[in-house]
């Protein structure tokens, strides 16, 4: 357990500089975006009102209120998120391959540590999950601040209601931070299983070389197939099952897929891995 925490600490630290850069990027881009989009709206609004000599209510009737979605849908908001997602997805692979390549043969040291080798796997897995969680938390914390920024620029008359509960319906964000705890578990659970399967696929490649890539892909597809089997079963049996039953079957399949990912990874790390 101690070694797991030490390795986890180590892995998180390795990515930390890049992580801070991502955080910085998100904050800067979104804050600037909040200002730019709001000011932009006000400028346009002022222009139109002056040009056409409209009153406020006339303008609003014609052009509608400013909704927070206008900011949330802008590149300022979205691009840093997409960029971070891309970075993290790359890191899912890089977190392993970085220890093999370049002037780096750190994998020797990792595999020679006096600890069960699966600990390395768990540490890297947890790292990814923490990094994702961290960014999501960051976003949740940023939203109220961004609301403040927007509301300080756009007067009340021009905006629609910005209360927090409003965001539940925002399509953009609902899959990022679901409001129900169960939804949270589900989505991150699926994410966890996905990363676990990817990790095991990477280890398959590292153990078997070129033909390993083939096996890895087959393994990935098999895992996916097993996972969605309940859904397929339901479709082919013409909706025979209740939602709860499908859910329970999916849960069982998830456990099977996750369990086998870990079991295979453990076996590979102990007996098949090559440096």
């Amino acid at each position, binding site marked *: 357990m101690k070694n797991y925490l030490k390795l986890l600490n*180590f892995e998180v630290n390795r990515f930390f500089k890049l992580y801070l850069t991502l955080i910085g990027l998100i904050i800067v881009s979104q804050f600037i975006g909040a200002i730019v989009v709001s000011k932009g709206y006000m400028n346009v609004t002022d222009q139109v009102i002056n040009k056409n000599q409209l009153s406020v209510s006339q303008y609003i009737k014609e052009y509608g209120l400013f909704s927070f979605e206008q900011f949330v849908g802008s590149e300022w908001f979205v691009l840093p998120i997409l960029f971070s997602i891309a970075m993290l997805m790359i890191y899912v692979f890089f977190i392993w391959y970085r220890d093999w390549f370049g*002037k780096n043969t750190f994998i*020797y*040291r990792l*595999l020679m540590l*006096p*600890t069960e080798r699966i600990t390395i796997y768990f540490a890297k897995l947890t790292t990814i999950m923490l990094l994702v969680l961290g960014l999501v938390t960051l976003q949740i914390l940023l939203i109220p601040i961004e609301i403040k920024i927007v509301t300080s620029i756009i007067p009340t008359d021009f905006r629609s209601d910005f209360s927090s509960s409003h965001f539940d319906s925002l399509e953009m964000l609902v899959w990022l931070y679901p409001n129900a705890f169960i939804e949270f578990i589900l989505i991150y659970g699926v994410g966890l299983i996905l990363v676990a399967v990817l990790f095991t696929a990477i280890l398959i490649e590292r153990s078997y070389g070129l033909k390993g890539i083939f096996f890895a892909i087959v393994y990935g597809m098999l895992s996916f197939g097993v996972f969605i089997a309940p859904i397929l079963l339901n479709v082919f049996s013409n909706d025979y099952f209740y939602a709860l039953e499908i859910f329970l079957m999916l849960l069982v399949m998830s456990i099977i897929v996750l369990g086998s990912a870990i079991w295979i990874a453990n076996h590979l790390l102990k*007996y098949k891995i*090559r440096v």
Partner: protein
Amino acid sequence: MIEVKNVEKKYGRKRVLKGLSFTAEKGEITCLIGINGVGKTTIMKAIMALTPINSGEILIDGKKIRKESFEKVTFIPDTITMLPQMKICDAFSFMADFYKNWDPQRAEELLQFFKLDPTERIANLSKGNMAKVNMILGLALNVDYLLMDEPFSGIDIFSREQIAEVFTSHLIEDRGVIITTHEISDIEHLIDRAVLIDNGEVLKEFSVEEVREKEGKSVVDVMREVYRG
């Protein structure tokens, strides 16, 4: 003692190790000798479970390798086993963190003996200095067995002399050491046993002093006989 028993290994179709067997005792320096590519490094990696074997057995003090074994055996490969951006002192902290058997004082001693600066980053070290740091990572561990892969290759003669000095010191005494080399003549007088390997097999395994005494031959002489015959 480390026992390698009938180890078979294939890379694809090619049989790299063909029923290879030898033993290395604690308190002795055993040298695996053979041309480049014959499989010496592979054997070492196999002992450390860093590469799989197809069949055969490798036992360390009678047991198969487990996680505890890594406090008993360590491997010094010809590449650095730390992150290049780490400073030497960071590398030492890492070792202290994970290994109970890490001896920080000995690491410090060796650092001074090799005249290295602990604040230097590993990526900025010369090849010779990197090899020395790698050595320290192995020698400062209170392990019973040390595996060193080509400790003398590719480094300048002064670094080599320094490293050779380590072999004659208390740092090696009482430990079991397996080294590989393809340049045996430099270190003939340092080793206890020689294992001649060719074509994935052990051709001859012998005590160096015994052969000198009984047959008046040096290791190089034996090599000539064995590899030609």
